[in-house]
C-alpha cells in the first residue's frame, strides 16, 4: 500500500520562510564531520590497486610480497568475495544485478576499464599501503578495448562480456553483443505523422561522459567485530541501500551491518553506489582492525560513476502553423563496463514536455571500456534534451515562430497522454513558459556576437519507502529522526519546517537528526528529487501521528472523548465548547506528564510515498561568442521552474542555481578525455574543468508554484530539473549568436572555433 496525503491550502506560518539551516553552524566552523573526518583507535588505511589497462584478462594476482611488507595487515582480491548469480535481485525498491556489482567493486575474470579495482590492502599507514600496492604482481593478458558507443555497437567490436545477448530483441540474437538492452517507447504512427509535416528537421548529437564532481571524494571507515557484526561510517545518499548492497556481496545478515551516514560532501547521484565500502569491511574482517578508505580525486574520476556519453539522433516534423506532427529519437547510451545506463529515463524524458500524437523512441544501453555510469541529477535527461530542444529551436526558426510560442503551441498540460504510460496530472509547464516570456531577460537587447537561447526540461520526481520518528522529549522539545539523507539541499531544514507547521510550534523546538540504519526501518536513497517530497510526507505523517497520540492522552487525562480534543496552535484545546470544556494543554505540559500518564509519546512514519509531482523548467541564457578564440561567455542566465511549493525558497533557489551551473559546465567545459590506449587523460580538476565563480554571471531564479495535489504542502521536488535545460539552451544561444549549430558537446573553444570555421568554409 502506498501513502499519499492530499494537498490542503492553508495559512502558513513557517513553510515558505527562510530560516537558518540546522547544519549551518557546524558547516561554517569545521565541526561538521564528513566521510574522511571519522577515525577509530587502531585504524588501518586501506588502498585499492587499480587496473592500468582498459581491457585485460587477469591471468594471475600474486600478493605474497605485499603481505610480507612490515605494516601490511591484510590484502583482499576476487578470492575473498563470493561469485554472484547473473540475475536481478531486489535491494529495497531497486533491482540490481549482483554479478555486476561484485565485479565492479573487485574485478574477477577481467579488468574492464582504466581504474577498475582488482586488489586492496590495509596497512598501518597510507605510505605503507601505497608501497604494498606496488608489490602486488598482476599478470594481464591485454585485450582490444572499445570506448566509443557507436564503435561498441558494431558486430565486430571487442566484447566486454561474451555471455551478453541484447535484451529486448526478438528472437534472441544468435551472437553476443555490447548492446545490453534495446528499449522502445511510442504511441501513434510516426510515418503518418511525418507525412503530414510541412517541415522536417533531423540532427545527430554526440556527448562525452561528465562527472558529478562532488568536492568530497568517497570516504568510509569500517569496523568488523569477531562476533560477525560490522559498523560502517560512510558518505552516502542512502545508508540503507549501502547496507543492503554490502550485506549481499559480503553474504552477511542485513541486521548485522550498521551504517552511520556521515555528512556528505556532495553526491548528485554519484554516491548511490558502493565502491570501497565492502572492501573496507572485508579488510577489517581479515585484519581484525578498523579500516579507513578515502579515494584520491584521481580514483574518483577513474573509477566512480560518470554520466554516460551518448550518440543521439532526433527527427521532428511540424506543420507550417507550428503544430508538431511526429517526433522520433534514437538514444545510444554508454553504460560503462556494466549494463545500466539511464537510457530508460532519458527515453521517457525526451519528448514529455510536448503533447504529441505520434512518437517513437529507441534506446540502446551499451557497455564500453569505461567506468560503470552512475546517476547524475536527472540521469540521462540532459543528453536527450540537448538533442530534442536543439531540434525544437531549429524548427521554430524554420517556421518563423518565437521559440517560446512554438513550445506553448505544443506544450504538455494536465491530461496530456505520455508516450510511456500515464496521463500527466496538474503540471506547471505552461506557467514556466509564460513566466519566461514575461521576464525582462527575454526582451533585453543583445550586442554583436551575442545570442539568446531557451530550452526546457522535465523530470518525473519520485517517492518510495521513507521512514522517520518524531520523539517528544520530556521538556516538550522534539527530535526528528530521519531516514532521508540531507544530500546538501537542506531537507533537514525543510522537513523540520513542515513538522513545526503541523504542530503549530516554533521551529527551533524541532531538532532534526539523520538516523543510522539501526534506528529506523528501510528508507530509500535520496534520489529522484524525493528528499523534501517523500521525506516531507513522512514528516507530516509522523507529526499527525504524534498529534493523534497527544489527543488521546489529553482525552484520557481530562476524561473527555477524543473527538472533543482538537490540536490547534501548538496546544490541545476543546474541539467545541459545547462538547467539552477543559484547560488547554501545551506540548510542554503534555511532555512533562507523559511518563506518568502512560509513557512517552512519539510519532512514526513508515510509508511508501507515492504521487510525486512532475517538475518542469524553462531556462533563458545569453551568451557572447569570441570568434577569435571560440570561447563562449555566459552573460545572463534565468531559471524558471515549477517546484509545486518552495518550503524554504532560499534552498530551492540554491538548487536552481547549482543545477544550472552544473549544466553550464556540462555544456561548455566538462568531458572525459581518453587516449587511443583507452586510458583517461584528465582525472583531475586541472584538466577536467568545472565552472568557477568568475565563469558565471548572476543566475536569476523565478519560482513557479503549481501545487502537487498529492503532497500536504504541494511539494513536487526540485533538485534535478534545473540541470536538464542548460546544455540545449546554450547550444541554442550559440546558434542565435553565430548562426552555427553545435552538436558535439562540450562547446569548448576548440570545438566552437572548428564549427565556426566549418561554417565559414561552407559559405565561402
Amino acid at each position, binding site marked *: 500500500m502506498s501513502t499519499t496525503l492530499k494537498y490542503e491550502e492553508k495559512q502558513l506560518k513557517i513553510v515558505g520562510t527562510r530560516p537558518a539551516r540546522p547544519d549551518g553552524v557546524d558547516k*561554517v566552523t569545521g565541526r561538521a564531520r564528513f566521510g574522511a573526518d571519522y577515525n577509530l583507535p587502531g585504524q588501518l588505511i586501506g588502498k585499492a590497486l587499480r587496473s592500468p589497462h582498459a581491457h585485460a584478462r587477469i591471468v594471475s594476482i600474486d600478493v605474497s610480497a605485499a603481505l610480507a611488507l612490515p605494516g601490511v595487515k591484510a590484502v583482499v582480491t576476487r578470492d575473498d568475495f563470493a561469485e554472484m548469480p547473473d540475475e536481478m535481485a531486489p535491494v529495497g525498491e531497486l533491482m540490481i544485478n549482483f554479478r555486476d556489482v561484485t565485479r565492479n567493486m573487485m574485478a574477477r575474470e577481467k579488468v574492464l576499464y582504466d581504474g577498475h579495482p582488482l586488489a586492496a590492502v590495509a596497512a598501518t599507514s597510507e605510505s605503507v599501503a601505497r608501497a604494498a600496492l606496488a608489490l602486488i604482481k598482476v599478470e594481464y593478458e591485454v585485450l582490444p578495448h572499445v570506448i566509443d558507443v557507436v564503435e561498441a555497437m558494431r558486430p565486430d567490436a571487442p566484447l566486454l562480456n561474451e555471455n551478453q545477448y541484447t535484451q529486448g530483441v526478438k528472437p534472441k540474437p544468435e551472437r553476443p553483443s555490447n548492446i545490453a538492452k534495446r528499449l522502445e517507447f511510442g504511441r501513434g504512427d510516426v510515418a503518418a505523422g511525418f507525412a503530414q509535416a510541412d517541415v522536417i528537421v533531423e540532427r545527430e548529437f554526440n556527448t562525452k561522459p561528465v562527472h558529478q564532481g562532488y568536492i568530497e571524494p568517497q570516504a568510509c571507515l569500517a569496523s568488523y567485530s569477531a562476533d560477525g557484526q560490522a559498523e560502517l561510517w560512510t558518505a552516502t545518499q542512502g545508508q540503507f541501500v549501502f547496507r543492503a548492497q554490502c550485506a549481499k556481496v559480503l553474504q552477511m545478515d542485513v541486521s548485522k551491518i550498521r551504517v552511520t551516514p556521515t555528512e556528505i560532501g556532495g553526491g548528485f547521484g554519484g554516491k548511490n553506489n558502493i565502491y570501497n565500502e565492502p572492501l573496507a569491511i572485508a579488510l577489517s574482517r581479515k585484519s581484525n582492525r578498523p579500516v579507513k578508505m578515502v579515494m584520491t*580525486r584521481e580514483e574518483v574520476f577513474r573509477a566512480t560513476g560518470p554520466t554516460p556519453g551518448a550518440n543521439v539522433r532526433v527527427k521532428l516534423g511540424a506543420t507550417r502553423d507550428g503544430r508538431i506532427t511526429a517526433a522520433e529519437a534514437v538514444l545510444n547510451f554508454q553504460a560503462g563496463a556494466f549494463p545500466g545506463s539511464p537510457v530508460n529515463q532519458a527515453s521517457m524524458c525526451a519528448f514529455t514536455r510536448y503533447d504529441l500524437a505520434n512518437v517513437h523512441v529507441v534506446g540502446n544501453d551499451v557497455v564500453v571500456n569505461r567506468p560503470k555510469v552512475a546517476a547524475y541529477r536527472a540521469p540521462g535527461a540532459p543528453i536527450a534534451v540537448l538533442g530534442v530542444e536543439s531540434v525544437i529551436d531549429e524548427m521554430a526558426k524554420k517556421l518563423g515562430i518565437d521559440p517560446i510560442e512554438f513550445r506553448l503551441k505544443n506544450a504538455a498540460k494536465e491530461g496530456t497522454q505520455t508516450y510511456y504510460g500515464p496521463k500527466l496530472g496538474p503540471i506547471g509547464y505552461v506557467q514556466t513558459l509564460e513566466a519566461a516570456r514575461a521576464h525582462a531577460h527575454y526582451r533585453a537587447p543583445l550586442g554583436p556576437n551575442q545570442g539568446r537561447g531557451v530550452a526546457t526540461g522535465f523530470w518525473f520526481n519520485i517517492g518510495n519507502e521513507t521512514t522517520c520518528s518524531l520523539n517528544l522529549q520530556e521538556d516538550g522539545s522534539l527530535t526528528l529522526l530521519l531516514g532521508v539523507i540531507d544530500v546538501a539541499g537542506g531537507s533537514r531544514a525543510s522537513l523540520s519546517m513542515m513538522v513545526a507547521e503541523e504542530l503549530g510550534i516554533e521551529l527551533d523546538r524541532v531538532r532534526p537528526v539523520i538516523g543510522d540504519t539501526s534506528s529506523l526501518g528501510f528508507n530509500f536513497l535520496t534520489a529522484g528529487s524525493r528528499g523534501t517530497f517523500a521525506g516531507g510526507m513522512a514528516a507530516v505523517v509522523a507529526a499527525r501521528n504524534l498529534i493523534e497520540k497527544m489527543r488521546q492522552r489529553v482525552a484520557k487525562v481530562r476524561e473527555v472523548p477524543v473527538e472533543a480534543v482538537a490540536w490547534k496552535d501548538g496546544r490541545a484545546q476543546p474541539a467545541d465548547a459545547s462538547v467539552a470544556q477543559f484547560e488547554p494543554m501545551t506540548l510542554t505540559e503534555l511532555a512533562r506528564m507523559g511518563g506518568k500518564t502512560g509513557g512517552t509519546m512519539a510519532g512514526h512514519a513508515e510509508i511508501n510515498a507515492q504521487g510525486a509531482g512532475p517538475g518542469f523548467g524553462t531556462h533563458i541564457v545569453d551568451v557572447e561568442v569570441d570568434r577569435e578564440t571560440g570561447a563562449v561567455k555566459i552573460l545572463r542566465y534565468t531559471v524558471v521552474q515549477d517546484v509545486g511549493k518552495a518550503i524554504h525558497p532560499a534552498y530551492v533557489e540554491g538548487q536552481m542555481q547549482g543545477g544550472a551551473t552544473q549544466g553550464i559546465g556540462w555544456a561548455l567545459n566538462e568531458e572525459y578525455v581518453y587516449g587511443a590506449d583507452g586510458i583517461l587523460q584528465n582525472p583531475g580538476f586541472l584538466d577536467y574543468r568545472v565552472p568557477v565563480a568568475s565563469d558565471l554571471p548572476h*543566475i536569476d531564479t523565478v519560482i513557479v508554484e503549481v501545487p502537487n495535489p498529492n503532497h500536504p504542502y504541494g511539494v513536487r521536488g526540485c533538485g534535478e530539473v534545473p540541470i536538464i535545460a542548460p546544455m540545449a539552451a546554450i547550444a541554442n544561444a550559440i546558434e542565435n549568436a553565430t548562426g552555427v549549430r553545435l552538436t558535439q558537446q562540450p562547446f569548448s573553444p576548440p570545438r566552437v572555433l572548428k564549427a565556426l570555421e566549418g561554417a565559414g568554409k561552407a559559405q565561402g
Partner: protein
Amino acid sequence: MSRNHVSATVNGDQVEFLCETGQTLLDALRDELRLTGTKEGCGTGDCGACSVMVDGRLVCSCLMLAVEAEGKAIETVEGMAKGEKLHPLQKKFIEHAALQCGICTPGFLIAARALLERNPDPTESEVRFWLAGNLCRCTGYQKIVEAVLDAGREMRGA
C-alpha cells in the same frame, strides 16, 4: 621510517607534531592534529577546499609539506569564530544560504576572509575572481558571492 618534529602555532596555539617527510600540511593538520575542519577535495591544489593561512598568506595546505610549517603561524577554519561569536563571514554564509553540502565552505571562508582583509570593499567581479580558486559544486556561487559582499558591508560598518 623516522619522523620529523615540527613546532608551529595553529590558530594562536603552540603545537608540536611528528610527520613523515612527504606528508602535506593538510594531512598533518587532519591526521596528526585532528583538525579535520580543513578538507581535501583534490590533493593537487585545484579545488581550494584545503585553504589555510600561513604567516598571513593564503595557501592550499595540500601543496605545502608539513615540515615547511616549522615556526609558522597557521590559521584554519576552526579559529575563525571568537568564542561563541561567529565571524561575520560565517554568519553571512548561513544567512544567505551560501552553503549546501558544506565541504567547500571552510576553504571559501578562509579565502574570503583573506580577500576582505586586503580589500574591504570588493566589487562583485573582484569577489568572483578572488574566489576562482575555490570550487563549489552545489551552489552555482551566486549566494556565496552575495554572502561575501554582505559580510564586507557589515565589517566596514557600511
